[in-house]
């Protein structure tokens, strides 16, 4: 019988349907009767309030399963299970933990297709992506971290796990985010309570089953499903030691505020509006494919999606034409079809958001272009979209759309490309395309982003840190830098809390009679100049016995503003050579030593002679230490399984506000300021509240030591007030606060505005006189942010 079907296809040469058969995966769902409880303490448990919610296949709207709605009680049960499991988990040998992580990797591989199909069903992403990208990366993450579990003690001496970790993940890479969160946490010896996204809980639950299959001790991994309220309960739980969150910047801010009053360590991986920069000497065809991988991966629902195309003017027309031709060949269709390039948008609310932002873009006058590709008749689909005639002021150029929408702009010079690339509140990722190693690396270094892909995009690997600058969050996932987020110095939580000092002195000390000295006017130190405070007021500074030692300016919000501006102007310090920075610090040491006696004598009146001499001795030593570190705290070259060089560069944070510890006015100041300055940051420091007069001694030393103006600024005054201004200042990139607990809490809470990184002493008494606690890598780790630059090579 003639088969007209074949003949017709022979002529049309269409692709036809190529559906992945979901039967095995559906049978797995049926095994659970399509109803899932929480996974707590190794067992499936019914939600305490008996409530379930539905999760759907966005390509059809069909219900996949009922999933437990987690209450505060459920979260509490999970946290208790995680806490109870901690001793047993940490009691295992490193090798035993490594074996379990290895077993998880194997188990993921053994069930890789089930996991891929479930992911595609629940999320709507094309099966090609879940099969070829998500699930292989999940397995890789567990393999890689099995290695860290083995090497932990030797590679992170003196560190310990945070404890119980609460993790909240988004819906765009559901299982991959499970792996990114759980693998490092377990490798470092933590136990976890993880809340998957409401839209996509299924693969996390499938993963829970794998945990039992490999014999992971009960309670080491707990999965509580639910909506935002479940996440809130987890964030608020008092017995959680760390929160790791991936999601929107808005929720990240809320979590920052919610955890401010606790000692919870926090890492946030948030939104982005990542630039995709194409220079005229790029391989344009490959750049176009880069955009396909950049903005049309996972329907553009990717935090690091290259959503802002920056094209050099000379190639803009050619590139746009190529891009449109390529877009016309994209296949939008059933996620389970192996030939779909673009699947379904995760949920109606997300589709509506995309539609509304695109409508705004059109209303603003940007040109919107979509290829005439067919869409399935039902399900949540959106065509790949290109906006041209876009300006930095456009909504579509500023707002994270989280959809398959690309906004294209042009630039004239590399400098302008960098300026446009950095013209965003975000700083997650960037892609730079040029065949010139000079341009590519120069621009990669200048873009403010945690990940920069040269001639590539959306490359991920467990060995490389991922995470953002600015309002894209802080902390890294992957690599050595990612593991640090789940570790802390072993001694830290043994230190007692700082108590608020009573005003005035405790012990009798020899007072210097003010009248015997020439009147000394200590000023603020801003931009390399001694300046009077804006307020025109001064504060008294008294000795321990209550003798008036002098007066310090009462700095206010305007002084902080001026100091931050001075620091911004001095950013050149960050790109000065490390050798140069070391030289300056050595010179400071020299001059401090020279004037040490008189400085110590004045300090002695406040802290006693013994401490003053000790502070002086250690301060000179600390200066030498950070001069040494300045050119030795080096980045690493990661080894992901690709032919490329991926460099984890340590970059300065920028401008850092510093609230210095009160108790060691000289040494405490230098303990915080020196690592920052050695790292290339500019600081606005609020000196010890106990003895702010130390500023007067310090700036004289700095002035005579070639410290460039604006690198170290000092504003005296009421620390709590000045802290508020620093924390709320959007042009301050990070804030270090060593003080009492309420001061630390305020620092964290108020910094949520621009999500600046905050590092505190957790309100604990840190012994700056002990080198282990007061100096070295722990400080430097917080003085830098890690930028991973991927440079594939090969001709």
């Amino acid at each position, binding site marked *: 019988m003639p088969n007209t079907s074949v*003949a017709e*296809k022979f002529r049309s*040469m269409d692709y036809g349907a190529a559906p992945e058969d979901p039967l095995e995966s559906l049978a797995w769902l049926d095994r659970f009767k399509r109803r899932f409880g929480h996974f707590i303490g190794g067992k499936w448990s019914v939600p305490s309030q008996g409530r379930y919610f539905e999760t759907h296949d966005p390509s059809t709207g069909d219900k996949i399963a009922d999933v437990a709605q987690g209450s505060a009680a459920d979260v509490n049960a999970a946290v208790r299970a995680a806490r109870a499991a901690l001793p047993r988990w940490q009691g295992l040998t490193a090798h035993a933990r490594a074996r379990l992580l290895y077993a998880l990797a194997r188990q993921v591989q053994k069930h890789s297709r089930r996991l891929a199909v479930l992911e595609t069903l629940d999320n709507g992403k094309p099966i090609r992506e879940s099969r070829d990208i998500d699930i292989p990366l999940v397995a890789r993450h567990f393999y890689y971290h099995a290695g860290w579990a083995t090497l932990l003690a030797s590679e992170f001496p003196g560190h310990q796990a945070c404890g119980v970790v609460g993790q909240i993940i988004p819906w765009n890479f559901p299982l991959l985010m499970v792996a990114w969160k759980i693998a490092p946490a377990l490798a470092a010896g933590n136990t976890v309570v993880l809340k998957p996204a409401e839209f996509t809980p299924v693969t996390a639950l499938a993963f829970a089953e794998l945990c039992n299959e490999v014999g992971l001790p009960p309670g080491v991994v707990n999965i509580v499903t639910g909506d935002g309220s479940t996440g809130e309960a987890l964030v608020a739980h008092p017995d959680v030691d760390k929160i790791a969150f991936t999601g929107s910047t808005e929720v990240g801010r809320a979590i920052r505020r919610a955890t401010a009053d606790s000692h919870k360590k926090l890492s946030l991986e948030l939104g982005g509006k990542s630039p995709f920069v194409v220079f005229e000497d790029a391989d344009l065809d490959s750049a176009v494919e880069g955009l396909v991988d950049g903005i049309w991966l996972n329907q553009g629902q990717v935090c690091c999606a290259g959503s802002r195309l920056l094209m050099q003017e000379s190639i803009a027309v050619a590139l746009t034409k190529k891009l449109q031709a390529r877009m016309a060949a994209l296949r939008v269709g059933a996620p389970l079809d192996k030939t779909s390039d673009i699947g379904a948008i995760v949920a109606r609310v997300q589709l509506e958001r995309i539609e509304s932002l695109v409508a705004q873009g059109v209303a603003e006058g940007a040109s919107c272009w979509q290829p005439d590709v067919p869409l399935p008749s039902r399900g949540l689909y959106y065509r790949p979209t290109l906006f041209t005639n876009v300006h930095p002021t456009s909504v579509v150029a500023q707002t994270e759309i989280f959809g398959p929408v690309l906004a294209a702009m042009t630039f004239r010079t590399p400098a302008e490309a960098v300026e446009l690339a950095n013209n965003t509140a975000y700083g997650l990722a960037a892609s730079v395309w040029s065949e010139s190693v000079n341009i590519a690396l120069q621009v990669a270094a200048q873009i403010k982003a945690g990940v920069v892909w040269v001639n590539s995009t959306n490359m991920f690997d467990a060995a490389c840190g991922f995470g953002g600058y600015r309002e894209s969050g802080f902390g890294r996932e992957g690599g050595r830098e990612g593991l640090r987020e789940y570790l802390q110095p072993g001694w830290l939580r043994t230190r007692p809390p700082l108590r608020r000092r009573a005003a005035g002195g405790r012990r009798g000390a020899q007072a210097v009679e003010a009248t015997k000295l020439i009147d000394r006017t200590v000023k603020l130190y801003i931009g390399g100049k001694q300046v009077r405070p804006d307020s025109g007021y001064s504060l008294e500074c008294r000795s321990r016995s209550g003798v008036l030692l002098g007066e310090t300016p009462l700095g206010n919000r305007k002084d902080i503003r001026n100091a931050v501006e001075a620091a911004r102007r001095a950013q050149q310090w960050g790109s000065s050579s490390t050798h140069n920075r070391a030289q300056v610090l050595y010179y400071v040491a020299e001059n401090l030593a020279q004037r040490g006696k008189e400085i110590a004598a004045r300090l002695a009146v406040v802290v006693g002679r013994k401490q003053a001499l000790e502070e002086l001795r250690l301060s000179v030593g600390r200066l030498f230490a950070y001069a040494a570190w300045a050119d030795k705290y080096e980045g690493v070259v990661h080894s992901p399984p690709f032919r490329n060089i991926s460099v984890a560069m340590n970059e300065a944070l920028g401008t850092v506000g510093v609230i210095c510890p009160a108790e060691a006015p000289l040494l405490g100041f230098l303990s915080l300021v020196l690592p920052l300055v050695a790292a290339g940051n500019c600081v606005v420091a609020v000196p010890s509240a106990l003895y702010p007069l130390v500023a007067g001694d310090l700036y004289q030393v700095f002035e005579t030591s070639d410290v460039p103006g604006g690198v170290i600024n000092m504003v005296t005054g009421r620390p709590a007030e000045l802290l508020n201004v620093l924390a709320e200042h959007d042009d301050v990139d990070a804030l270090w606060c060593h003080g009492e607990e309420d001061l630390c809490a305020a620092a964290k809470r108020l910094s949520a505005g621009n999500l600046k990184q905050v590092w505190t002493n957790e309100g604990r008494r840190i012994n700056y006189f002990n080198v282990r606690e007061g100096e070295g890598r722990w400080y430097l780790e917080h003085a830098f942010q890690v930028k991973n630059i991927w440079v594939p090579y090969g001709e």
Partner: protein
Amino acid sequence: MTRDTQQRLGVGERMEELPLTVQSSRRAVVAQLQGRALAANAGTALNLDWVDSVRVNTSAVERRAATLIARRTVKKDWQIAWLLRAITCMDLTTLSGDDTEERVRRLCAKAAHPVSDAVKATLGIQELPIQVAAVCVYHLFVETARRALQGTQVRVAAVSTGFPAGLNALADRIAEIRRSVEAGADEIDVVITRAHVFAAQWQRLYEEVAAFKEACGTAHCKVILGTGDLATLRNVARASLVAMMAGADFIKTSTGKETVNATLPVGLVMTRAIREYCERTGMAVGCKPAGGIRTARQSLDWLALMKEELGQSWLEPHLFRIGASSMLGDIERQLEFHGSGRYSASYHHPLA
């Protein structure tokens, strides 16, 4: 090369002085690219600026080649249709030192009946005219092949110009082309002097290919770049452009004798060069991967590459060929499986 030819090709003149697009709008449309009608390639002047501006990022090309074939697949009846199409785009090839006339006749018989009637019957495709595009042989067997293929649509292609090294004297190589054309070859597969690429002597390469093209006359000129020898993708792209400017009807990857033959990244670079050339000149050039293509799956990958990067026109034998000898057997086995539901053995299928 005659003065006429030199003038037509604008050898030695600077490109800016010549319009890029062929003026001959009367020429027949041979292809469509993104809705634009394309004529057969008549060549252009050598444009060195264009050659110099070539950028190829190897890692990115490799990623695209790897993901392209993971993004596209064909199943069931579509797969049957695509495999049949692959057969019709095949240059069934024998290029061995032990070739004989009888061997060539056997190959020609297979070329005319690549799929057995029994298999066609089980697939219900008796009415489809399935023949390979061409047989590809040494000059010595052109006459034999031409006779054996009389009454079929199968064309005769001869490898020429001192194949595979291509290092004979230019006059000898051109004479060789002429002899094959006279012997009745419809297509001539010529090889370039790779040294011209290594030395970036684009003018010499251009003149060489232009001379080959002229010698071919109405026979199709398929230019073998020797991509395995050229080593870098940038070289492949530049050589592709120069060959097209010089008038190549097809650009072809390999002789099949290099250690590395037709790889997908090379194919991707060549298809992109073809696309660029088509867009800028309005003329179409065919693509022929050859060497190392042995499986049905590979044939589907190459078809998908053509469809994605160039479009439907490049799924036709006048613009796409696969040079292969053993691939047909694998395709036959797949086709039999589709018809019977049973996995096939190679001895079920007549030898080529």
